[in-house]
């Protein structure tokens, strides 16, 4: 007796939709895995032609699949996990005036370090206490060792305030430098996070070599002031690079498409306003431009005229004198950098010039969803290095209320700074940290006395970043490694294999037991379990969680615990059946009566999951998350999906015994 579809479609939907949704979310994970396996196969074969072809056909697909795929934790994919902490003792030591440091001060530092090692008290407090005990009786005060860094009156309070500020910003400074390095060395999917106020946590997938990691972490970043040379000379060099690349390609490709190119060039020369590509379909137009301007088409060049930015092109070589501005989208950056790093191309750029990228993408464009960087042509030789900077501080201009950064230099720096600024009025000087330009302010006037004010920041955050960068000159943020974990690639693979195997065996055992004990109704749990596991993975993937080895353990454990809810219901239904109820009534009653025990037992486990999440670290949090997702899924799959399944079986007239012996009517003798 088949029921009308209109009566059961809702229950069918409950069976099919969650599973379908889970599979849909997990599709990119499967696709990424499949494509990666294929790429690895080609890599092993060493077939570069096939590899290039693969990259062309599937490169984009692989990247987008990976973006949406379930992320594996470092313990499964191999890599390095590092926790850094600001070494406050070292910071206090290095912040002291070098000439002033004496035996007494060294003693104070030593004692502070000894005490700080086994105490949770703020290091500055320990330092002050030790200082009071050791140094003060010998007639020293903080003023003996520290300077406030600017021309204000020196007092103990000021020194303390400055030290406190430096300790606070040290972690941001280290984080900024490390972030830039990680970006630069291209550690894919690296994760950098601040933990609390003094620690940075770093996850570096694929990095298993300590030397590699240390390269990223050595925080002696160089702060330099360099003159900006965004001028016609630079633009002419870019033009030359275009011509050179074209010529070179012409050499290698004989003379295939160059006919049209020449034609286009002549047209362009004939009338400089007409677009030679007019009338072409957009795609073709782009292709032609890429072909004709292999280098300069990668970025946008503006001519700065009365503070207005006029885009120019490279169809003609007579570039007006003056200032230029360059912007480059993230997409073409790799090619841009690849071309610029070629030695034959570098020869075309004036020897005393170099190209440096801005540290952050343009904020306004970023809000519109575009990642566009500025780049600068700089004079290679720095005018001044950052060690002359004694202090920097982000604040607001008292009159205009705009965010500004104040920068102080020592006497030697101030003298040279006056000379440099005096010679470059109305020109730009770039503030460069570790090779990236953080700001390129225009010199308004000759700056004497060592105190400069930098304006033009769009937000106090931007000002704060600049403060951190400028401080890198005065103060190396000393950090120490407090935790370091490396998982080699082979252990990760082994863990995945073993985890999967344990999962399969566990699944098999549970299924055997449930079907053996509860027969047909037990089979329902197989389906519910399947949906459960798929949904755990899907939710983890959708919320950008990471799957760790303890996470896999959490999933395996969930399988064991999820069927508990089924058991509670089934046992209750058995009881009701024994009491002589009909199967229909028993199913309803069983679900209703088992609910409170199911909820209570799952909530208690959920509570411990929460505690574990907040007090655990790294992989253990992964366990807590899968455990908690597993519990929510269990409630859903058992109370809703499995229920729908059973209702459907009943609706289609199947009999369910719940593993009880059939009742028989036997004649009484």
């Amino acid at each position, binding site marked *: 007796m088949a029921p009308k579809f209109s009566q059961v479609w809702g229950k069918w939907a409950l069976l099919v939709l969650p599973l379908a949704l889970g599979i849909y979310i997990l599709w990119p994970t499967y696709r990424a895995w499949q494509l990666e396996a294929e790429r690895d196969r080609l890599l092993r074969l060493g077939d570069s032609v096939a590899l290039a072809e693969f990259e062309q056909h599937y490169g984009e697909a692989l990247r987008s699949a990976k973006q949406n795929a379930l992320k594996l934790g470092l313990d499964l994919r191999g890599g390095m996990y590092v*926790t850094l*902490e600001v070494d406050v003792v070292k910071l206090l030591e290095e912040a002291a005036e070098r000439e002033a440091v004496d035996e007494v001060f060294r003693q104070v530092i030593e004692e502070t370090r000894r005490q700080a*090692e*086994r105490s949770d008290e703020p290091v500055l407090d320990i330092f002050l206490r030790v200082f009071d005990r050791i140094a003060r009786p010998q007639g020293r005060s903080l003023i003996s060792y520290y300077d406030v860094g600017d021309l204000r009156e020196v007092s103990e309070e000021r020194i303390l305030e400055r030290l406190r500020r430096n300790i606070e910003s040290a972690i941001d400074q280290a984080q900024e430098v490390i972030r830039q390095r990680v970006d630069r060395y291209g550690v894919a999917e690296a994760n950098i996070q601040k933990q609390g106020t003094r620690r940075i946590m770093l996850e570096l997938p694929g990095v*298993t070599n*300590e030397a590699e990691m*240390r390269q990223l972490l050595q925080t002696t970043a160089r702060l330099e002031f360099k003159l900006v040379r965004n001028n016609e000379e630079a633009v002419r060099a870019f033009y030359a690079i275009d011509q050179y690349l074209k010529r070179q390609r012409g050499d290698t490709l004989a003379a295939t498409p160059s006919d049209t190119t020449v034609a286009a060039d002549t047209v362009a020369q004939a009338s400089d306003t007409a677009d030679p590509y007019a009338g072409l379909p957009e795609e073709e137009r782009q292709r032609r431009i890429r072909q004709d301007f292999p280098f300069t088409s990668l970025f946008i060049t503006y001519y700065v005229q009365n503070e207005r930015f006029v885009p120019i092109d490279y169809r003609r070589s007579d570039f007006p004198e003056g200032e230029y501005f360059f912007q480059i989208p993230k997409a073409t950056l790799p090619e841009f950098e690849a071309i610029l790093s070629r030695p034959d191309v570098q020869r075309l750029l004036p020897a005393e010039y170099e190209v440096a990228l801005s540290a952050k993408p343009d904020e306004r464009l970023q809000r519109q969803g575009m990642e566009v960087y500025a780049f600068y042509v700089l004079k290679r030789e720095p005018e001044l290095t950052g060690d002359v900077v004694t202090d920097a501080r982000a604040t607001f201009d008292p009159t205009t209320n705009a965010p500004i950064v104040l920068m102080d230099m020592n006497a030697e720096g101030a003298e040279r700074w006056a000379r440099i600024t005096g010679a470059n009025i109305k020109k730009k000087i770039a503030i460069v940290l570790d090779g990236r330009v953080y700001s390129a302010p225009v010199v308004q006037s000759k700056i004497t006395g060592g105190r400069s004010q930098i304006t033009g920041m769009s937000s106090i955050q931007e000002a704060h970043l600049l403060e951190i960068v400028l401080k890198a000159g005065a103060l190396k943020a000393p950090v*120490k*490694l*407090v*935790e*370091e*974990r*490396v*998982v*080699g690639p*082979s252990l990760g693979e082994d*863990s995945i294999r*073993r*985890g999967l195997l*344990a999962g399969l*065996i*566990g699944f098999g*055992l*549970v299924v055997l*037991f449930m079907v*053996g004990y509860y027969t047909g109704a037990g089979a329902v749990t197989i389906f519910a379990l399947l949906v459960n596991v798929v949904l755990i993975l899907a939710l983890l993937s959708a919320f950008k969680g990471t799957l760790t*080895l*303890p996470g896999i*353990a959490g999933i*395996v454990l969930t*399988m*064991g*615990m999820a*069927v*508990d809810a089924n*058991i*509670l219901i089934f*046992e209750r239904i058995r009881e009701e059946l024994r009491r002589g109820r009909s199967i229909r009534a028993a199913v309803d009653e069983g679900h209703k009566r088992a609910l*409170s*025990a199911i909820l*209570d*037992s799952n909530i*208690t*486990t*959920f*509570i*411990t*999951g929460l*505690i*574990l999440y907040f*007090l*655990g*670290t790294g*992989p*253990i949090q992964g366990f*807590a998350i899968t*455990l908690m997702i597993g519990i929510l899924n269990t409630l859903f799959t058992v109370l809703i999906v499995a229920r729908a399944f059973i209702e459907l079986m009943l609706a289609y007239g199947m009999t369910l015994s719940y*593993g*009880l012996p059939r009742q028989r009517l036997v004649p009484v003798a």
Partner: protein
Amino acid sequence: MEFFRQTNIDFLGKRRTIIWISVAITAVGMLLVALYGLEYGIDFVGGTEVAVQIRPEPDIAQIRSVMDKAGFSGAEIKSYGRAEQFLIRVREREEGGTAATAVLETLRKGFPERSVELLKSDRVGPKIGAEMRRNAFLAVILAVVAILLYIAFRFEFLYGVGATIALVHDVLIAISAIAIVHHFGILRIEINQSVLAALLTVVGFSINDTVIIFDRIRENRERYKGMNLIKLMNLSINETLSRTINTVLTTVLVLLALLLVGGEVLQGFAFTMLVGIITGTYSSIYLASAFVVEFVQRFQRVDLDAEYRKLREAERAAAQA
């Protein structure tokens, strides 16, 4: 299939004896923990640990001599999982030193003709270790208190206390079991983050059986108003016996799978949970309700036992008649 069919076991009859036996077992367990000591993993004490795979495999004495020559005297060397895999734990040579790389270099130099591969390395500073230890302790306490409050809120305060005593019992037994198997070299289990996770999960999970029973007690109390508490509890435990056992059984099955094939890293986790939830079932059946009965007798000054004895006698008499 049915394992238990309408049992009528007097679980609470010998509860004093059972409580004392349990207390004795727990005390002996704690004594053994004190005697044998627990080995803390580097998560909780700090230090450097390097797991390597050396092919073809040397024996541990060979590795030790290589390490000693390089100045890593006192390094602990153990086998790790497979025959060719080793775990080496060294003391910090210097603050911020590159111990893992140094160990690897030493081994590569010491065994130039073999392949030495890094499986994993962990270095934890002593301060972080202390912090994690404190957090771990805090987490277990917090979990127990949270469960106490939840059960007290859902049932009654006395029930919460009974459940909590059962939980603490489970955790202590699990810890003793770790100390014992570790001491006798059956399994190499250290107290580390994943064992902590297992202990917490035990707290959250072994309460489940208690909840099933308490839930039934609450339901039966409504149905059989005025029934003697011991009789009521015995009835409830018997009625729920098959689900109490079955729910644990399925979890035991998956934990066995994890323990046997899940690999070295998950071994401690699986073992701890296995012991914890099995004792959890025992304590749910025999201890949690037993404590509630004891509390009720003490604080409400009711002689439930005498009442229950009379009831049993009456039943027996009725059966004979």
